[in-house]
């Protein structure tokens, strides 16, 4: 991506969105954002709009699909759900994440004098 944002951060948000959809079933953008905030116990106050950038990325890779439906209060909203490819990707990406965060954790724990 050439838009200057850290790829790791983008990837992290994508992973969270994917996991949320895998766990909760079809959700609209607001639902996803709300869910991520709740899980993070409000520690992660994302600018909810950034969810949509993530949703577009996931849609174009075919990891999620979107369809219009009725929201809780009977208005039209676009609901996203994870695809089969998305589930496979989620498994491998989650594993990847665990490995990387493990490595980073170990690196950060190295004492100054080694």
């Amino acid at each position, binding site marked *: 991506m*050439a*838009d200057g944002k850290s790829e790791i951060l983008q990837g992290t948000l994508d992973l969270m969105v994917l996991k949320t959809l895998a766990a909760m079933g079809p959700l*609209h953008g607001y639902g996803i*954002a709300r869910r991520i905030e709740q899980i993070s116990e409000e520690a992660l106050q994302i600018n*909810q709009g950034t969810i*949509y950038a993530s949703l577009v990325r996931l849609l174009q890779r075919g990891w999620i699909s979107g369809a219009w439906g009725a*929201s809780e209060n009977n208005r039209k909203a676009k609901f996203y759900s994870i695809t089969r490819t998305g589930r496979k990707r989620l498994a491998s990406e989650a594993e990847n994440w665990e490995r990387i965060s493990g490595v980073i954790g170990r690196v950060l724990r190295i004492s100054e004098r080694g």
Partner: protein
Amino acid sequence: MFSWMRILGVKIRSWVSRRGEEDEFARELEEHLALLTEENISRGMTVDEARRMARVRLGGTTQLREIHREQYGWLAAETVWRDVRYALRTLRKSPGFTLVCVLTLGLGIGASTAIFSVVNGVLLRPLPYPNHERLVRIGERHPRNGCGLCGNFGNATYANFNDLERAANTVENVSAFREWSFNLTGDGEPEQVPGALVSGNFFAALGSKPVAGRMITPEDDAPGGDNHIVVLSYTLWQRRFGAERGVVGKTHG
């Protein structure tokens, strides 16, 4: 590479993110704002405050829509670029196959282009005459000399032409021509120019108008008429006579 991709992105964006796509996204954001506002109201905010805070939490919708549009373009461009690179890599791996493909395509395209040029010139492009769709060529086929089926036009006799002119009632005008070459002498070097002998109503049938002077008329053709009239082609007039109007009425060798 990135500037190249940006250009491609701009192009692809125009067809990927069609208006419908953008309108849909705008509606999606509106719904998001409505839900956020409701949440804020349930937390005890006034309606105005709830709306304002909802906008803060979501971020500027104009900017979001801009990013959305940008992203559609970008990802499509990236995918295309990836495909192109993959294709090039694959082709490089099997040069024999690549060569065969390139030759096949090259020859195919070349042959098609050549055939089309001929068809376009001969069949598709209309003749440069008014009412060109009503022009037909009539010819005689002589079974004994020349091939009877290859569409050659044999020379009809003058008597046959006269019969045809008198009797044909499905056509407006029958005129005859015979390709001929002429020797042009006088000022400058003598030269042989291609031309045709035509009957009196030939130009009337084609509907051609002269730039200067007049065309050959049926009176020239009639017995006792002056049958030494020449109509110069525009190119010959320009080239040989310097487009001089004074050439009209002069006698040439």
